[in-house]
């Protein structure tokens, strides 16, 4: 080794500083995030329903995922800047304070609750023609976001269930009543249940500047697997976020009903799903359009709720198509509800 070192030392000495600069550009993270095209994930590979096993769908239903690079390096920023498919933006608000791991946790819970929402909507829709199908679910209130000033920040995890708070007028178990029952003091005892079903109590203190605890809750429905027929299994995947909701719902519905709603087509799309079957906006439209186009999908569903709104997903999709030189005619389909998507597919078969 010494012989090599002696031989290479003049070059090593010359290149040392540029080398360290290059490594800095390659590893130092900056406060931005970058959306890049990803791929399609067939829902039947992610959610398995023990029903209609003999049925073979002629087409496929896939969610569209994108790659989100949190806190890219300078090098990635530069590469992404020159790529027509990527979108780069600064991390702002509470997202800027979250670590990459915390963002992954939020993404995981978004995905988890979105799968349960899809199951509920699809099972209830399929139940109309087939009363054998049953689904049972309960409402839980989960920790959805944490401000940097939240006291006991490390004790509370994303996805922990809110149980109660000892308020001014006794125990409060309903989230909407917390604000009116925490006026007299600065600190209150909150009880949560973690993912291991263990209860714990922490004292949360209001922030002096905002006069808030710095925690946000969100109510979600969770399917009771024991009381649900047919049984199902959700496969672990690397995909996070709620944007697969609509396509998950369509795919689950297709697994439950006798007819094949795919009509032999390669169906993809994006959009969150509400418990009433409404479809919600998502991010990364440009990357999802690019992904769908590269994967040659036949039908791509995209939320369209208000065509006058600049950031309406369908309007964004048309803009992205113009920018990328893609013809959207016939395959980018605007929808507002699960029923819209179903009607469109059933209309193709008639």
């Amino acid at each position, binding site marked *: *080794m*010494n*012989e*090599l*070192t002696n*031989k*290479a030392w003049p070059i090593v000495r010359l290149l040392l500083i540029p*080398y360290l600069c*290059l*490594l800095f550009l*390659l*590893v130092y993270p900056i406060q931005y995030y*970058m959306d*890049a*095209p*990803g*791929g399609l*994930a067939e829902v039947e*590979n*992610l959610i398995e329903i023990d029903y209609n096993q003999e049925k073979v769908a002629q087409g496929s239903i896939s969610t569209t*995922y994108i*790659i989100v*690079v949190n806190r*890219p*390096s300078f*090098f*990635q920023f530069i*590469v*992404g800047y020159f*790529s027509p498919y*990527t979108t780069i933006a600064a991390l702002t608000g509470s997202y800027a304070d979250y670590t990459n791991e915390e963002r992954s946790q939020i993404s995981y819970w978004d995905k988890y609750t979105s799968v349960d929402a899809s199951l509920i909507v699809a099972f209830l829709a399929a139940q109309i023609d087939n009363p054998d199908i049953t689904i049972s679910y309960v409402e839980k209130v989960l920790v959805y976001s944490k401000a940097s000033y939240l006291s006991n920040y490390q004790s509370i995890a994303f996805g922990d269930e809110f149980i109660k708070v000892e308020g001014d007028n006794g125990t409060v178990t309903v989230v909407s009543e917390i604000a009116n029952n925490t006026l007299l003091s600065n600190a209150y005892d909150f009880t949560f249940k973690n993912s291991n079903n263990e209860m714990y109590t922490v004292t949360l203190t209001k922030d002096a500047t905002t006069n808030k605890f710095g925690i946000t809750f969100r109510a979600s429905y969770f399917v009771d697997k024991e009381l649900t027929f047919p049984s199902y299994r959700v496969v672990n*995947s*690397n*995909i996070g976020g709620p944007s697969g909701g609509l396509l998950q719902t369509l795919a689950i519905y297709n697994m439950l009903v006798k007819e094949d709603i795919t009509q032999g087509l390669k169906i993809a799309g994006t959009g969150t799903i509400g418990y009433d079957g409404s479809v919600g906006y998502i991010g990364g439209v440009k990357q999802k359009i*690019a*992904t769908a186009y*590269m994967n040659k999908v036949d039908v791509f569903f995209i939320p369209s709720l208000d065509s006058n709104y600049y950031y309406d997903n369908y309007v964004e999709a048309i803009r992205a198509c113009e920018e990328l030189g893609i013809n959207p005619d016939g395959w980018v389909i605007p929808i507002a509800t699960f029923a819209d998507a179903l009607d469109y597919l059933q209309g193709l078969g008639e």
Partner: protein
Amino acid sequence: MKVFLNKCRQLFKDFSWKEVLDALLGGIVYSTLIFVPIYIILVETAMIFMHRLNTFVILITFAAMMNVYTINKLTAKALILKKPDTTTDIKSIWMTHSLIWMTIVFIIGLLFIFVLIPILWV
């Protein structure tokens, strides 16, 4: 193969284990210094162009093969620098050695493209 083994025996007559390992260590350290930025560049670019994942796996495999070649090249260089008057055919030994390892890396790359990525991705 027999010729290669005879050359290896000759190598260990000319050099002690310690000298060969020292040369190998030098080869690994310096080739790592060269290839670490290349790997980081490829992986970070692949993260942005994930829709071209297989292309990047091919490029990373190619880089790994070059890394193996460089390790062997530098090891041979270090041994020659240790004993410039050696009669052992060091270059051909390390070329054969690098070809064996490059083939292994190539097979691992193919495994990733055709087996592991389709199974593990998503």
